[in-house]
């Protein structure tokens, strides 16, 4: 298949309702179970090692009208929390047997228990992922938290997570993440051959299928992309930062590039690319995965990293991708992104890196104002 054909399939796959994705997999895996993870990170390896299909619960995007969830959550709460809950009320996640939430923010925390109250038959687990990154007890704690999740799966579904199975799943996800890292590296090198909306749909589609399947077509994509014929344009190379949880509409990603940018780095679907390098597979795999969460994590607004300043990871990302500027894209009402914006922008200013901010909501459908803002920013940089 050509890259265009693969990407068309990805676009189709990533636009399907989560419940339909789950039911389709179950049709070929009788008795199988499906567990979806709310952003940002969850150990898909453990879900996979239990023989289940890991999926991503990413809200309703532009596909659902809120008819129940906005009576549960107030107007000042982010869209992704409300539309995710709405998927439950409207039966759109029917076929998904369980959901994993974690302590990324106060809203996600409350959503977890509200989901459980409203849908008592669903399996719900809330992971407390450590915010202390330096104390000696932290990796041990993280590993135990992952063991607790595995035990909860066993109790709920009768599915055991053995150490060999988990080690194997870690290997498979290492392979998947390696492909994703390669795609990101390719975009840095030749952004004219892989647009950000394309990269995004490929990434999102990878969250809708078993990792073994995604690896197959990601390999084909990586082989085909260099053969594309595209001429580099005079555009501003930018890093997009802040859209790690609520998903920006594709239209926004398109506008970013149409307005004169090459997005060469971003934090979209960050949890599915969480580790900076392969997770070790020797020794106890729970210990390995727990330690990797603490010591090999990408910089994220949802995790405190005591060993470096909040802006360090972003500046490093700018340098590595040879970007010229940063476009902050926090979702409306997203406290982690909005708080980090301040420390990050101060760090960028100290480093002499230009930046701008564009808030979004998943339901955003008109982009003209954003296009204007970005065009002005790009022009001010290119013609400076």
């Amino acid at each position, binding site marked *: 298949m050509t890259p265009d054909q693969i990407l068309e399939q990805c676009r189709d796959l990533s636009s399907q309702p989560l419940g339909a994705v789950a039911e389709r997999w179950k049709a070929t895996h009788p008795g199988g179970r499906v567990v979806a993870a709310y952003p940002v990170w969850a150990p898909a390896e453990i879900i996979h090692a239990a023989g289940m299909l890991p999926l991503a619960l990413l809200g309703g995007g532009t596909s659902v009208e809120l008819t129940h969830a*906005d*009576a*549960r*959550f*107030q107007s*000042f*709460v982010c869209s992704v*929390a409300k539309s995710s809950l709405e998927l439950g009320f409207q039966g759109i996640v029917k076929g998904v047997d369980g959901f994993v939430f974690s*302590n*990324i*923010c*106060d*809203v996600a*925390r*409350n*959503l*977890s*228990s*509200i989901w*459980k*109250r*409203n849908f008592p038959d669903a399996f719900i*687990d*809330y*992971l*407390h992922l*450590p*915010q*202390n*990154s*330096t*104390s*000696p*007890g*932290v990796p*041990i*704690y993280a590993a*135990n*938290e992952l063991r*607790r999740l595995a035990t909860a799966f066993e109790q709920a579904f009768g599915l055991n997570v053995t150490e060999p199975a988990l080690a194997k799943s870690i290997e498979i996800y290492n392979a998947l993440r390696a492909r994703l890292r390669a795609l990101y590296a390719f975009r840095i090198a030749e952004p004219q051959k892989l647009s950000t909306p394309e990269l995004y749909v490929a990434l999102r589609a990878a969250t809708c299928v078993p990792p073994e399947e995604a690896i197959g077509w990601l390999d084909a994509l990586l082989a085909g992309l260099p053969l594309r014929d595209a001429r580099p344009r005079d555009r501003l190379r930018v890093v997009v930062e802040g859209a790690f949880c609520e998903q920006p509409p594709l239209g926004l990603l398109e506008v970013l590039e149409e307005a004169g940018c090459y997005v060469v780095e971003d934090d979209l679907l960050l949890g599915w690319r969480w580790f900076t390098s392969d997770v070790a597979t020797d020794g106890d795999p729970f210990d390995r995965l727990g330690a990797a969460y603490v010591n090999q994590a990408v910089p994220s607004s949802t995790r*405190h990293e*005591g060993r470096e*300043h*909040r802006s360090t990871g972003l500046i490093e990302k700018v340098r590595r991708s040879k970007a010229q500027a940063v476009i902050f894209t*926090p979702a*409306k*009402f997203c*406290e*982690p992104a*909005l*708080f*980090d*914006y*301040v*420390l990050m*922008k*101060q760090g960028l200013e100290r480093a002499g890196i230009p930046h701008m901010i564009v808030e979004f909501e998943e339901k955003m459908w008109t982009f003209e104002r954003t296009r204007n803002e970005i065009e002005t920013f790009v022009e001010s940089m290119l013609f400076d």
Partner: protein
Amino acid sequence: MAAPVTERQYQGKVHEHSRRLMSDWMGRLSRAEAEGQPTGAIMISGNCVEILLACHVLPMFPEVTALQNAIRHKSLPLILKAEQAGYSSDNCAYVKADIGLFLDGGMGPGKPMPFPTITVCNYVGCNVYVKWFEHLADLSGSKLFMLDVPFARTAGEPTQADVQYVVGQLKELIALCEGITGKKFDIDYLREILAHSARAEEGYARSKALCKAHPAPFDAYFDAINMMGPINVLRGTKEAAEFFDVAVAEFEELVAQKLGPLSEERFRMVVEGPPPYPYYRNFRNLFAKWGAVGVASTYSMVGGIWEWGFRHDPRRPLESIAEQMLRENLTNRSITSRYQQIKRYVEEWEADALVIHSIKSCRLFSAGQGDMRDYFTRELGVLTLLVESDLEDPRYYAEAQLRNRIDAFFEALEHKKVVRAAERQGAGAPALEATR
């Protein structure tokens, strides 16, 4: 027509005593830099203030500073300063007021509020705490210690593993403080401090329990603020323990005399959520005129839930501090476990209604309170009012709207009360004029 409800203008020993103790503490804070006294910033909820005291570090609470500025109508200029520096209008205004205080020249070397020597983030469920203290440490240059406390996520917690995880971090914190102060940690001194804590906790719990009386001797939402300083900020001191001895004696006397904060207690309400500090008095008046008294509240227990019997234990000093941080405070529990807490309040304190004050700043408290209303109205049949404003940002306080909703709610409540009374007497509903 029913007689208008008036406040008893109660300004008893509790209020005065609290004011004096808190002023003394603020005075010590303002002199700390000049006196070379190390200070430690820490958060209210599920705090380990006893560790700082035992390590001879003077605790400071940015939340208290923020609320004091709000109640004195000084918060808005500080919030605006922070927004000019890049903070969003959607960020927690407590944080913005605190950062704004620094930007405005009110915090830092030689300023009325010192920089903390150490910033201890007791991360107990509130993710904004993590951000707030990252920012505070960044601007002050102080050492940040991130004390990770696992959220209460399964039944039967806290587990021994979680307790030991927190204890391990407490030991690190102690070592860090020893390095700052140059003073050796003394476990027996900590035990002594915890004995004071337990005594204060007992007194606070007893005070809150006295609000089961009809009428309640004080408003457990609006008046409880007088006790929240001593229980959360000064806990562990002899003065705080003695404060609650005085408080309990005074409240017991009021119960014996059947005196409450209003001339008449017409409605007993449980209140959920923090108050709008910039309009504290106005907001209170909206309820007082209906004779509505808060007999229990969740916010008053935000630092620690002492009502169900937990006490710090000097025999197990570090373990009991860890247990309190893990389980015995409001913020490290799920919102639905708060439903159960409120349900107990409604039942055991014999409340007529639940009032939810939903605030934009604190999503930990507020995100999902629509679901809470749904649970109490549909599943339990508890009359519930949900109103929105903010605890720090006066721009979100719309008094006319609030008054309309509160008046409509209590009119309906009064009507129901009259109808029920009439039904009990076997007569028809009386004329509406009797309902005020």
